[in-house]
């Protein structure tokens, strides 16, 4: 198939693996920031084939996983507002808050609906004028333009019963936060292909410039990732630190200006809380003054709550790249995809779920 099989074929992948194996490496730590990469690396078997040669570390790149329990509690409060319909992407339904989850609240009779597109939420608001339709806005730079579009559409159509709970987050500030914490010694970032299709390479430049860490924006097939690893290794051998694009069939130097323009029109940056990391300055998005009336927290009184992590769960350490799922005593036992305790086991792109389904840990 065009754009799939070519990147999955055995021959080219094998050739890249041989090239990587031939390098004299000091087992460098490369972090894949994005959950889709985590899944691809485990599912294709790249992690296993490069074991002992390259240390691939999963980062905080799953928007579901990094949503704090405090924010999940807020979403639960929103669902409790009289006459509210809370709309959400499916993965958020099962994420545990402090004492409940949207799934449990739905079973209790709250009107919580899974949508596939943000447009579904706008359509629902138009169809149900007596209800307050709230979109649970979760996602990184890839998803944010679709949320901005929904808000701009609500504005255009003068809807007064459409709101969002903005939990959107930005990837580059999280990367620098990890480096600032100093817990982890990284030699390269594999940057997310989808996010970068929107934002382009520029937002990562400060990472290679200020921290001297090379970044490669990679696609999601086995050969994409292997090629990205090879590009990072090339840097190791003396090349100047910079941001490189491997995923050229999707990512351009300028990103997607139309999408970026729309996001900038609707949102401005604010500080945001990340599960396992804490508050990261300028890493979240809130609605600009013009669109503020669509902010559910502006319209209704939503309790702020406090953050709380389940005991024994090490999702925070896993999201920071300093622990592996196998290090967690709950992994595969009390915490399981059918009854997840931590968020990394809930989302299909969470590091724990990916290791559970595609890793080789004993369960």
């Amino acid at each position, binding site marked *: 198939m065009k754009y799939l099989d070519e990147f999955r074929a055995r021959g080219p992948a*094998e050739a890249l693996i041989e090239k990587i194996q031939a390098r004299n490496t000091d087992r460098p730590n490369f972090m894949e920031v994005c959950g889709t990469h985590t899944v691809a690396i485990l599912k*294709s*078997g790249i992690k296993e084939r490069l074991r002992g040669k390259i240390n691939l570390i999963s980062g905080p790149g799953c928007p579901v996983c990094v949503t704090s329990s405090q924010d999940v509690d807020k979403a639960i409060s929103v669902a409790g507002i009289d006459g509210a319909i809370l709309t959400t992407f499916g993965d958020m339904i099962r994420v545990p808050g402090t004492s409940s989850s949207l799934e449990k609240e739905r079973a209790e009779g709250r009107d919580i609906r899974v949508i596939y597109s943000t447009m579904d939420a706008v359509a629902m608001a138009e169809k149900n004028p007596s209800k307050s339709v709230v979109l649970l806005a979760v996602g990184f730079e890839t998803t944010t333009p679709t949320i901005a579009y929904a808000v701009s559409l609500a504005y255009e159509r003068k809807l007064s019963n459409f709101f969002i709970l903005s939990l959107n987050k930005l990837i580059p500030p999280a990367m620098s936060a990890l480096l600032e914490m100093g817990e982890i010694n990284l030699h390269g970032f594999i940057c997310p292909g989808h996010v970068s299709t929107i934002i382009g390479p520029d937002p990562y430049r400060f990472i290679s410039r200020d921290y001297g860490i090379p970044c490669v924006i990679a696609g999601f097939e086995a050969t994409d990732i292997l090629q990205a690893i090879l590009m990072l290794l090339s840097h190791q051998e003396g090349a100047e630190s910079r941001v490189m694009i491997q995923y050229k069939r999707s990512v351009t130097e300028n990103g997607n200006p139309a999408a970026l323009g729309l996001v900038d029109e609707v949102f401005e940056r604010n500080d945001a809380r990340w599960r396992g990391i804490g508050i990261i300055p300028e890493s979240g998005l809130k609605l600009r003054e013009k669109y503020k009336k669509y902010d559910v927290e502006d319209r209704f009184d939503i309790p702020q709550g406090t953050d709380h992590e389940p005991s024994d769960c090490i999702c925070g350490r896993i999201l920071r790249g300093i622990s592996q799922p196998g290090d967690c005593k709950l992994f595969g036992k009390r915490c399981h*995809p059918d009854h997840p305790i931590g968020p990394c086991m809930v989302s299909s792109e969470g590091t724990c779920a990916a290791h559970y389904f*595609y890793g*080789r840990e004993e369960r």
Partner: protein
Amino acid sequence: MKDTDKVLLAHGGGGGLSYQLIKDLILPAFEQHPILKELDDAARVSVKNGRLAFSTDSFVVKPMFFPGGDIGKLALCGTINDLAMVGAKPMYISVAFIIEEGLSLKTLGKVIESMEKVARLTGVQVVTGDTKVVEKGSLDQLFINTAGIGSIDDDLDISSSNAKVGDNIIMSGTIGDHGIAVLSQREGFEFQGNLLSDCAPLNHLVSRMTEKTKNIHVLRDPTRGGVASALNEIALQSGVEILLKEAKIPIKEEVRAACEMLGLDPLHIPSEGRLVAFVSEEDAGSVIETMREDPLGKDASIVGQVVSQGNSRVLLETIIGAKRILTLPKGELLPRIC
């Protein structure tokens, strides 16, 4: 049918309308099924001495009509295939309809027509049935249960607990066509394409295979949970480790593309007209040859092997040559797919 074109509660009431439904809609369709026409409380059937296979399944697929089939075809194929998967020749089948009040009789007629077509094709006799009607809103249009009986030749021993070290694993054709074809019709998922469900009766294909060799140890149709579930269950029941080669698994482009878009794994997607066979190594070649002579087995190929005894698991050799454990899909991946 003279008075209304919709199914009424009274059609299930046992009175005049019930009789009319059977007489006007069901019996004419099953003209070639003499035992059904006796309309006794139970069908009286003859079987030769020996072992019988007996199976039942219920069908709730949504939407009822999908590219390449409908709930009627599926309901017959499902039970026929379950019987065939233990090497049985399907003989008699029962059909029970649970109908939502208000379903159009024309729709019901179309479903019955496609059931008759499968019966004709497979030589299976529909011998008994039942019709219930429930108030509007109690169920979604139409659910069907079928149960079937088949006879098993004495020299066959086909069971999921029978996989043996060294067995070659043969896949009869591309995987996941049914699941993706049905999904493509769902609200919120609509995507264009020419993909048809693989829904088909496998009894003739199985007959060819069992005529060729008696060394077929396991047969399984990878329905709910797909190939991943089928192989994991076999590994567990037989107490063996299975090695599956990703590169060898036949998958249609459309299925691969849809899975890619929706974040699904083709190994988890159900088929309704495919089988996996565990065949002793020395017979695998001739079995594949004979399978390929049948339209339903034309893409048959070896996808893996039973590698050892004792460790019940399925290993997947990925395209880039790494091995990972192939796990069961989780929970309600694709509700109402069959």
